């Protein structure tokens, strides 16, 4: 019964095998070192058929093939699946470097013949004679040499940086890479240095599962990236990166080596292997960080890299008290995380909240940073959001680049305070908002720059002027007073004696009258009058005239009557001088009248 079941299973497996397509795959490294042995593996998913090996290049020394077959029967969800495969391994050594082609191999199944792909292999010149070092599994790639590990060591580790001379803030990509020529079974205790002066950001790195083959300076290494990261230098100067430390587990063979089967695959079977921890460190590095050039623009907020900026707004027509979102997007590569927000001077009347900042980083240091400003218009009207300018430092061009994004004009409509329509309308007044206090501006007009002058009041000669003026005034006063006094003396005497003299003359006239000299009487009366007038009115006898006398008398408020009387007497005296005495008035009467007039005038003129 059991046998029947087995036979049935086998039959079914055969059926399944025939049902599936036959494939022939080849697995060969893309590169190898001359003189070192590598493997070419052919896998056929069938056991039934004839394998024709390829025609290897004559310079290939080929060992093998080592053939193994396997059959697997699987039940998956009730379905049975049988898989059988044949593996043929050739061990090849190539002596001379160059590029070789591995021709196609063929497999003849019952019905079909399949052939494998042709493969190219690059054989490079061997570097060191230690070619017996273990080969690495997996497909390798030839990489440009230049990041050579520390020579001579079997296992080493290196920090590789994208640039060793950067500006502060400029992102530097870096990785920690492992180089090995021996078998490792694992990694323990990775210790990064603290990267003083940098801000380090790890990039997600897949865990190291398999190593890649790299030929560096003719030596084949298995390499793998342990961790990728980005560094943002924070300070300027020569910054040293301390060594990183790691413990790797090295597989060491303890048993005797088989001289014929020098192969790790067989080694692991035929000799005992122990795992030994080994500490490896990187070399310390220095990075020259240049500080950003001065002067920095006012709108520079720490962004270093190459960016573009865009702005957008949710709507330019807004309702009162309804939120509007303005978005500023910074896009590009650089220190996005450290780039500050742009300063936008929003107009008064729009309430602004702190922006919501989102950073979307794709891969390393490039990505977008989005600043979302929530704006709530609190007044109606047209508001102008000015264009945004944002300076970034472009380390490639080594200069500041000012990015500009457009501003917006927002129209805010709506009626304030609609919700309280039932209540009596109360319009709250708003005080004028003073935004700041500053001194007033300078005066730019022309000014009279007067040279400093010594004050007059502290000089002696200024005060001497006063003294001089006073002295001159006193002098003038004294002289004038003397003059006045002198005048007053003569005139006063004459004034006081005027009436007396006049009376004397009149008395003499009366005497003349008695002695019979009538002709002289009138002349004497005239002389008495003229003398009196001259003395009293202070008019010199030489230029006395009737008119001058009358004017002077009128000035002294003499009666018109007196002046008429005076005029008549004077006319009478003059007339009698040239006419016979008998005619006209009698000299006695004239004397009498003159005496009376002088008496009256004396009353007025004194």
């Amino acid at each position, binding site marked *: 019964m059991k046998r029947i079941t087995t036979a049935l299973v086998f039959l079914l497996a055969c059926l399944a095998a025939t049902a599936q397509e036959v494939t022939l795959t080849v697995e060969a490294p893309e590169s190898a070192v001359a003189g070192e042995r590598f493997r070419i593996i052919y896998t056929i998913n069938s056991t039934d058929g004839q394998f024709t090996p390829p025609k290897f290049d004559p310079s290939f020394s080929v060992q093998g093939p080592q053939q193994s077959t396997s059959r697997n029967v699987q039940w998956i969800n009730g379905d049975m699946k049988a898989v059988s495969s044949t593996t043929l391994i050739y061990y090849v050594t190539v002596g001379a470097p160059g590029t070789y082609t591995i021709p196609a191999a063929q497999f003849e199944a019952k019905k079909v013949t399949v052939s494998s792909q042709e493969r190219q292999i690059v054989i490079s010149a061997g570097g060191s004679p230690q070619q017996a070092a273990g080969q690495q599994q997996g497909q390798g790639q030839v990489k440009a040499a230049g990041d050579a590990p520390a020579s001579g060591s079997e296992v080493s580790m290196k920090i590789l940086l994208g640039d060793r001379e950067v500006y502060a803030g400029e992102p530097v990509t870096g990785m920690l890479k492992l180089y090995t020529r021996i078998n490792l079974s694992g990694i323990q205790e990775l210790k990064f240095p603290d990267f003083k002066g940098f801000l380090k950001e790890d990039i997600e790195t897949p865990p190291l599962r398999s190593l890649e083959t790299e030929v560096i300076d003719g030596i084949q290494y298995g390499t793998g990236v342990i961790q990728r990261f980005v560094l943002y230098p924070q300070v300027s100067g020569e910054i040293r990166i301390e060594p990183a430390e790691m413990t790797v587990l090295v597989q060491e063979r303890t048993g005797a080596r088989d001289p014929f089967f020098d192969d790790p695959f067989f080694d692991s079977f035929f000799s005992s292997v122990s795992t030994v921890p080994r500490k490896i460190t990187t070399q310390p590095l220095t990075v020259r960080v240049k500080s950003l050039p001065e002067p920095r623009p006012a709108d520079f907020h720490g962004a270093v890299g190459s960016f573009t900026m865009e702005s957008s707004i949710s709507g330019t027509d807004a309702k009162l008290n309804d939120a509007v979102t303005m978005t500023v997007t910074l896009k590009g590569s650089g220190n996005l995380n450290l780039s500050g927000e742009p300063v936008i001077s929003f107009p008064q009347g729009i309430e602004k909240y702190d922006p919501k900042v989102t950073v979307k980083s794709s891969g390393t240091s490039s990505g977008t940073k989005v600043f979302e400003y929530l704006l709530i218009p609190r007044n109606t009207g047209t508001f102008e959001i000015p264009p945004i300018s944002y300076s970034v430092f472009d380390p490639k061009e080594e200069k500041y680049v000012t990015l500009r994004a457009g501003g917006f004009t927002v129209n805010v409509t709506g009626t304030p305070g609609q919700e309280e329509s039932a209540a009596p309308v109360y319009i709250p007044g708003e005080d004028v908002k003073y935004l700041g*206090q*500053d*001194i*007033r*501006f*300078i*005066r*730019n*007009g*022309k*000014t*009279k*720059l*007067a*040279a*400093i*002058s010594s*004050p*007059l*009041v*502290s000089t002696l000669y*200024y005060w001497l*002027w*006063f003294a001089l*003026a*006073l002295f*001159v*005034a006193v002098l*003038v*006063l004294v002289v*004038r*007073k003397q003059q*006045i006094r002198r005048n007053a003396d003569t005139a006063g005497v004459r004034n006081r004696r005027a009436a007396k003299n006049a009376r004397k003359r009149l008395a003499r006239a009366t005497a003349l009258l008695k002695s019979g000299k009538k002709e002289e009487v009138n002349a004497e009366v005239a002389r008495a009058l003229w003398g009196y007038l001259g003395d009293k009115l202070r008019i010199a006898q030489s230029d006395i005239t009737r008119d001058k006398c009358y004017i002077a008398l009128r000035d002294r408020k003499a009666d018109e009557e007196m002046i008429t009387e005076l005029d008549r007497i004077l006319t009478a005296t003059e007339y009698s001088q040239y006419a016979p005495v008998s005619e006209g008035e009698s000299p006695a009467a004239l004397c009498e009248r003159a005496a009376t007039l002088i008496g009256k005038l004396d009353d007025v003129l004194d």
Partner: protein
Amino acid sequence: MRRILLIQIIFMAGILSLEAQSPEERYSQAGGLYGSGDYSGAAAIYRKLWEEGFRSEDLLYNAGNAFFKSGDNASAILFYERAKLLAPADEDIDYNLQIARSRITDRFESVPQLFFVRWFDFLALLTSTNTWAVSALVMFLVALVLALLFLTRARARGRLLSFWLAITALLLSFLIISLALRNNNLVNHNSKAVITCSIVTGRSAPGETGNELFVLHSGTTVTVEQELGAFLEVRLPDGNKGWIRSDCMEKI
């Protein structure tokens, strides 16, 4: 030989004067610097002009502004106070001085001056000392002439008028002289000073040994009462007195 030397000296002086900018040019240059934001540069030019003896209320006002903008509040107050002596009625100076004063550390409840002292000082500062002095002299001469008229005119008419005019002119001339002296005192023999050190201790005696009485900060205006060596006795706006190192203040 001497003549050649003399010609050379005159020639060189001519070149120098051609090269040197006129004070007005420097003044407007400083204005340009201020406009472009180089406040300390502008302040240096204004201060140099002041030190060279040029006076103008605009110059001092601008100097105050430049010092204020460059952060030197003490010098700003100093120059505003100086400007105020040249233009006591200028509202801008008062405003800026008030702002500069609001930025200094020390606060005082200052004792206000009697109103007539304030008025008299205001009147005295309306024009310069020398203008007052010259007008006082002119007024004195007018008074003398009127007095002479009064004393020499014999006639009664007009005598009385000239008498009263002469008395008025004489009183006016005395008033103007006192204004001139007050102006001179305020402007040229000002006893006020502004503290320039950021912090200074007032002591009860000149020297470093006296008891510490108070601490003043830069920008405070004090009145100097007397001097003894390198120390000055100052009166604070609230009336207290103390001795302060003279290199810590600058006279207005």
